[in-house]
Protein backbone atom coordinates (compact mmCIF):
# COMPACT_ATOMS: atom_id res chain seq x y z
CA UNK A 1 0.00 0.00 0.00
CA UNK A 2 1.45 3.37 -1.02
CA UNK A 3 0.86 6.68 0.75
CA UNK A 4 -1.25 7.78 -2.20
CA UNK A 5 -3.47 4.73 -1.76
CA UNK A 6 -3.61 4.97 2.01
CA UNK A 7 -4.98 8.51 2.11
CA UNK A 8 -8.05 7.34 0.17
CA UNK A 9 -8.83 4.62 2.71
CA UNK A 10 -8.76 6.65 5.91
CA UNK A 11 -12.52 6.97 6.35
CA UNK A 12 -13.03 3.28 5.59
CA UNK A 13 -10.27 2.47 8.09
CA UNK A 14 -11.83 4.64 10.81
CA UNK A 15 -15.28 3.19 10.12
CA UNK A 16 -13.95 -0.34 10.38
CA UNK A 17 -15.12 -1.21 6.92
CA UNK A 18 -11.81 -2.37 5.45
CA UNK A 19 -11.15 -6.05 4.93
CA UNK A 20 -8.73 -7.90 7.18
CA UNK A 21 -5.92 -7.82 4.63
CA UNK A 22 -6.39 -4.11 3.98
CA UNK A 23 -6.33 -3.31 7.68
CA UNK A 24 -3.08 -5.24 8.04
CA UNK A 25 -1.52 -3.44 5.07
CA UNK A 26 -2.78 -0.10 6.42
CA UNK A 27 -1.30 -0.74 9.88
CA UNK A 28 1.98 -2.02 8.47
CA UNK A 29 2.27 1.09 6.35
CA UNK A 30 1.58 3.35 9.34
CA UNK A 31 4.27 1.60 11.35
CA UNK A 32 6.83 2.69 8.77
CA UNK A 33 5.50 6.04 7.57
CA UNK A 34 5.42 9.15 9.78
CA UNK A 35 3.83 11.12 6.93
CA UNK A 36 0.78 8.91 6.84
CA UNK A 37 0.59 8.80 10.64
CA UNK A 38 0.42 12.58 10.50
CA UNK A 39 -2.20 12.53 7.76
CA UNK A 40 -4.34 10.15 9.82
CA UNK A 41 -3.96 12.35 12.92
CA UNK A 42 -4.95 15.43 10.94
CA UNK A 43 -7.94 13.59 9.55
CA UNK A 44 -9.01 12.69 13.08
CA UNK A 45 -8.52 16.30 14.22
CA UNK A 46 -10.66 17.43 11.30
CA UNK A 47 -13.45 15.08 12.36
CA UNK A 48 -13.16 16.32 15.96
CA UNK A 49 -13.32 19.94 14.79
CA UNK A 50 -16.35 19.22 12.63
CA UNK A 51 -17.93 17.76 15.75
CA UNK A 52 -17.68 21.12 17.48
CA UNK A 53 -19.91 22.80 14.90
CA UNK A 54 -23.49 23.14 16.04
CA UNK A 55 -25.93 20.33 15.45
CA UNK A 56 -29.10 21.17 13.62
CA UNK A 57 -31.99 21.85 15.93
CA UNK A 58 -35.28 23.67 15.92
CA UNK A 59 -35.31 27.27 17.07
CA UNK A 60 -36.71 27.76 20.56
CA UNK A 61 -39.97 29.38 19.35
CA UNK A 62 -40.58 26.52 16.92
CA UNK A 63 -39.96 23.97 19.65
CA UNK A 64 -42.28 25.83 22.03
CA UNK A 65 -45.03 25.93 19.44
CA UNK A 66 -44.77 22.20 18.98
CA UNK A 67 -44.98 21.51 22.70
CA UNK A 68 -48.04 23.76 22.90
CA UNK A 69 -49.59 21.95 19.95
CA UNK A 70 -48.94 18.68 21.71
CA UNK A 71 -50.61 19.90 24.89
CA UNK A 72 -53.63 21.02 22.85
CA UNK A 73 -53.72 17.72 21.00
CA UNK A 74 -53.59 15.83 24.29
CA UNK A 75 -56.61 17.73 25.58
CA UNK A 76 -58.64 16.81 22.53
CA UNK A 77 -57.45 13.38 21.47
CA UNK A 78 -58.77 12.26 18.13
CA UNK A 79 -59.34 15.80 16.92
CA UNK A 80 -55.72 16.27 16.07
CA UNK A 81 -53.56 19.22 16.98
CA UNK A 82 -55.01 22.66 16.72
Amino acid at each position, binding site marked *: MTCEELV*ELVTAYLDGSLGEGEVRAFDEHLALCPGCVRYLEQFRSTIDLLGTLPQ*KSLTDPAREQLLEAFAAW*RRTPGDGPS
Partner: protein
Amino acid sequence: MTGKAGPVGGAAPEDDTLVARLRAGDEQTFAALVDGWSGWMLRLAGRYVPSPSVAEEVVQEAWLAVLQGLEKFRGESSLRTWVHQIVLNQARRRGVRESRSVPFASLLPEDAGPTVDPERFQGRDGAHPGGWRRFPDEWPEQVALTREVHDVVATALAGLPERQRVVVALRDLDGHTSAEVCALLEISAANQRVLLHRGRAVVRAALERYFDRRRTPVEVTS
Protein backbone atom coordinates in the same frame (compact mmCIF):
# COMPACT_ATOMS: atom_id res chain seq x y z
CA MET B 1 -24.59 20.16 22.43
CA THR B 2 -24.12 17.05 24.51
CA GLY B 3 -25.92 13.85 23.66
CA LYS B 4 -25.03 13.54 20.00
CA ALA B 5 -26.85 11.06 17.83
CA GLY B 6 -30.57 11.01 18.23
CA PRO B 7 -32.41 7.72 18.09
CA VAL B 8 -32.47 7.60 14.34
CA GLY B 9 -31.71 3.94 13.90
CA GLY B 10 -34.07 1.00 13.78
CA ALA B 11 -34.73 0.74 17.52
CA ALA B 12 -37.93 -1.08 16.66
CA PRO B 13 -38.44 -2.63 20.10
CA GLU B 14 -38.89 0.80 21.62
CA ASP B 15 -41.47 1.94 19.13
CA ASP B 16 -44.42 0.34 20.93
CA THR B 17 -43.47 2.06 24.15
CA LEU B 18 -42.92 5.42 22.47
CA VAL B 19 -46.21 5.30 20.60
CA ALA B 20 -48.13 4.24 23.69
CA ARG B 21 -46.65 7.12 25.68
CA LEU B 22 -47.39 9.63 22.94
CA ARG B 23 -50.96 8.42 22.66
CA ALA B 24 -51.27 8.76 26.40
CA GLY B 25 -50.18 12.39 26.04
CA ASP B 26 -46.77 12.08 27.70
CA GLU B 27 -45.21 15.46 27.03
CA GLN B 28 -41.71 14.40 28.07
CA THR B 29 -41.65 11.65 25.48
CA PHE B 30 -42.80 14.07 22.81
CA ALA B 31 -40.21 16.66 23.81
CA ALA B 32 -37.47 14.02 23.80
CA LEU B 33 -38.45 12.87 20.33
CA VAL B 34 -38.63 16.41 19.02
CA ASP B 35 -35.17 17.12 20.43
CA GLY B 36 -33.68 13.84 19.26
CA TRP B 37 -35.12 13.67 15.77
CA SER B 38 -35.66 17.24 14.57
CA GLY B 39 -31.98 17.51 13.60
CA TRP B 40 -32.06 14.85 10.92
CA MET B 41 -35.56 15.94 9.94
CA LEU B 42 -34.24 19.45 9.30
CA ARG B 43 -31.30 18.13 7.27
CA LEU B 44 -33.65 15.94 5.27
CA ALA B 45 -36.17 18.73 4.65
CA GLY B 46 -33.33 21.07 3.79
CA ARG B 47 -32.59 19.01 0.72
CA TYR B 48 -35.96 19.93 -0.78
CA VAL B 49 -36.74 23.46 0.28
CA PRO B 50 -34.97 26.73 -0.39
CA SER B 51 -34.17 27.98 3.10
CA PRO B 52 -33.60 26.89 6.69
CA SER B 53 -36.74 28.70 7.81
CA VAL B 54 -38.89 26.78 5.32
CA ALA B 55 -37.18 23.56 6.42
CA GLU B 56 -38.16 24.38 9.97
CA GLU B 57 -41.78 24.95 8.93
CA VAL B 58 -41.73 21.63 7.13
CA VAL B 59 -40.44 19.88 10.24
CA GLN B 60 -43.08 21.56 12.40
CA GLU B 61 -45.79 20.51 9.97
CA ALA B 62 -44.35 17.02 9.93
CA TRP B 63 -44.58 16.77 13.72
CA LEU B 64 -48.19 17.94 13.61
CA ALA B 65 -48.90 15.34 10.94
CA VAL B 66 -47.26 12.73 13.17
CA LEU B 67 -49.64 13.62 15.98
CA GLN B 68 -52.62 13.54 13.63
CA GLY B 69 -51.62 10.19 12.23
CA LEU B 70 -50.56 8.61 15.50
CA GLU B 71 -53.86 6.81 16.04
CA LYS B 72 -53.47 5.19 12.65
CA PHE B 73 -49.85 4.14 13.13
CA ARG B 74 -49.83 0.35 13.10
CA GLY B 75 -46.12 -0.28 13.41
CA GLU B 76 -45.81 -1.79 9.94
CA SER B 77 -42.61 0.18 9.56
CA SER B 78 -40.47 1.57 12.34
CA LEU B 79 -41.61 4.83 13.85
CA ARG B 80 -38.51 6.48 12.45
CA THR B 81 -39.21 5.30 8.92
CA TRP B 82 -42.79 6.48 9.23
CA VAL B 83 -41.70 9.94 10.43
CA HIS B 84 -39.08 10.03 7.67
CA GLN B 85 -41.82 9.47 5.09
CA ILE B 86 -43.97 12.18 6.63
CA VAL B 87 -41.12 14.68 6.39
CA LEU B 88 -40.64 13.83 2.73
CA ASN B 89 -44.37 14.20 2.06
CA GLN B 90 -44.50 17.55 3.83
CA ALA B 91 -41.41 18.77 2.00
CA ARG B 92 -42.83 17.71 -1.35
CA ARG B 93 -46.18 19.28 -0.58
CA ARG B 94 -44.33 22.53 -0.47
CA GLY B 95 -43.76 21.74 -4.10
CA VAL B 96 -40.44 23.51 -4.07
CA ARG B 97 -37.63 22.53 -6.32
CA GLU B 98 -37.61 18.84 -6.07
CA SER B 99 -34.92 19.13 -8.68
CA ARG B 100 -32.69 21.02 -6.30
CA SER B 101 -31.69 17.86 -4.70
CA VAL B 102 -29.49 15.48 -6.60
CA PRO B 103 -30.41 11.91 -5.78
CA PHE B 104 -27.96 9.98 -3.68
CA ALA B 105 -28.29 6.80 -5.66
CA SER B 106 -25.30 7.35 -7.89
CA LEU B 107 -22.03 9.19 -7.59
CA LEU B 108 -21.19 12.25 -9.66
CA PRO B 109 -18.01 13.51 -11.30
CA GLU B 110 -17.52 15.75 -8.25
CA ASP B 111 -17.23 12.59 -6.15
CA ALA B 112 -14.50 11.01 -8.25
CA GLY B 113 -10.74 11.41 -8.38
CA PRO B 114 -8.07 11.62 -5.72
CA THR B 115 -8.83 13.52 -2.50
CA VAL B 116 -5.21 14.59 -2.09
CA ASP B 117 -3.37 16.44 -4.84
CA PRO B 118 -1.42 13.77 -6.80
CA GLU B 119 1.44 16.27 -7.06
CA ARG B 120 2.16 15.60 -3.40
CA PHE B 121 3.19 12.05 -4.17
CA GLN B 122 6.23 10.74 -6.01
CA GLY B 123 5.75 9.63 -9.57
CA ARG B 124 6.73 6.30 -11.05
CA ASP B 125 10.33 7.40 -11.38
CA GLY B 126 10.61 8.39 -7.71
CA ALA B 127 12.47 6.42 -5.07
CA HIS B 128 9.10 5.53 -3.52
CA PRO B 129 6.41 5.74 -6.20
CA GLY B 130 3.14 6.84 -4.59
CA GLY B 131 4.99 8.00 -1.46
CA TRP B 132 4.87 11.53 -0.07
CA ARG B 133 7.26 13.93 -1.76
CA ARG B 134 7.21 15.82 1.50
CA PHE B 135 5.28 14.80 4.61
CA PRO B 136 2.31 16.97 5.54
CA ASP B 137 3.45 19.73 7.86
CA GLU B 138 2.74 19.29 11.51
CA TRP B 139 -0.28 21.06 12.97
CA PRO B 140 -0.21 22.78 16.34
CA GLU B 141 0.03 20.16 19.10
CA GLN B 142 -3.41 20.88 20.44
CA VAL B 143 -5.52 22.40 17.71
CA ALA B 144 -7.06 25.19 19.72
CA LEU B 145 -10.63 25.87 18.90
CA THR B 146 -10.27 29.52 18.16
CA ARG B 147 -12.94 31.50 16.43
CA GLU B 148 -10.75 31.45 13.32
CA VAL B 149 -10.37 27.68 13.23
CA HIS B 150 -14.08 27.37 13.77
CA ASP B 151 -14.73 29.66 10.81
CA VAL B 152 -12.31 27.76 8.58
CA VAL B 153 -14.13 24.50 9.29
CA ALA B 154 -17.59 26.02 8.95
CA THR B 155 -16.70 27.75 5.68
CA ALA B 156 -15.14 24.62 4.20
CA LEU B 157 -18.21 22.61 5.16
CA ALA B 158 -20.56 25.17 3.66
CA GLY B 159 -18.60 25.08 0.40
CA LEU B 160 -18.92 21.32 -0.10
CA PRO B 161 -21.16 19.94 -2.83
CA GLU B 162 -24.60 19.43 -1.32
CA ARG B 163 -24.54 15.65 -0.95
CA GLN B 164 -21.09 15.60 0.59
CA ARG B 165 -22.14 18.36 2.96
CA VAL B 166 -25.27 16.53 4.08
CA VAL B 167 -23.38 13.31 4.75
CA VAL B 168 -20.55 15.04 6.64
CA ALA B 169 -23.05 17.03 8.68
CA LEU B 170 -25.09 13.99 9.62
CA ARG B 171 -22.04 11.92 10.52
CA ASP B 172 -19.62 14.39 12.08
CA LEU B 173 -21.82 17.21 13.38
CA ASP B 174 -24.94 15.33 14.36
CA GLY B 175 -23.14 12.14 15.31
CA HIS B 176 -25.21 9.63 13.37
CA THR B 177 -23.77 6.24 12.50
CA SER B 178 -23.04 5.08 8.99
CA ALA B 179 -26.05 2.75 9.07
CA GLU B 180 -28.34 5.58 10.18
CA VAL B 181 -27.15 7.88 7.41
CA CYS B 182 -27.56 5.15 4.80
CA ALA B 183 -31.15 4.55 5.92
CA LEU B 184 -31.95 8.24 6.10
CA LEU B 185 -30.62 9.12 2.66
CA GLU B 186 -31.36 5.77 1.01
CA ILE B 187 -27.78 5.41 -0.06
CA SER B 188 -25.38 2.47 -0.13
CA ALA B 189 -22.70 2.15 2.52
CA ALA B 190 -20.01 2.44 -0.15
CA ASN B 191 -21.40 5.67 -1.60
CA GLN B 192 -21.96 7.13 1.83
CA ARG B 193 -18.31 6.49 2.59
CA VAL B 194 -17.12 8.08 -0.65
CA LEU B 195 -19.12 11.27 0.02
CA LEU B 196 -18.03 11.39 3.65
CA HIS B 197 -14.38 10.82 2.84
CA ARG B 198 -14.29 13.46 0.11
CA GLY B 199 -16.02 16.00 2.29
CA ARG B 200 -13.70 15.40 5.22
CA ALA B 201 -10.63 15.52 2.97
CA VAL B 202 -11.69 18.93 1.64
CA VAL B 203 -12.14 20.27 5.17
CA ARG B 204 -8.75 18.85 6.19
CA ALA B 205 -7.13 20.55 3.21
CA ALA B 206 -8.76 23.86 4.20
CA LEU B 207 -7.32 23.51 7.70
CA GLU B 208 -3.94 22.66 6.26
CA ARG B 209 -3.94 25.84 4.14
CA TYR B 210 -4.99 27.83 7.18
CA PHE B 211 -2.17 26.47 9.33
CA ASP B 212 0.31 26.98 6.48
CA ARG B 213 -0.67 30.64 6.24
CA ARG B 214 -0.40 31.08 9.96
CA ARG B 215 2.98 29.42 10.25
CA THR B 216 5.21 32.37 10.84
CA PRO B 217 7.98 32.45 8.28
CA VAL B 218 10.58 32.79 11.01
CA GLU B 219 13.81 30.99 10.27
CA VAL B 220 14.28 27.96 12.42
CA THR B 221 17.69 27.81 14.04
CA SER B 222 18.97 24.45 15.05
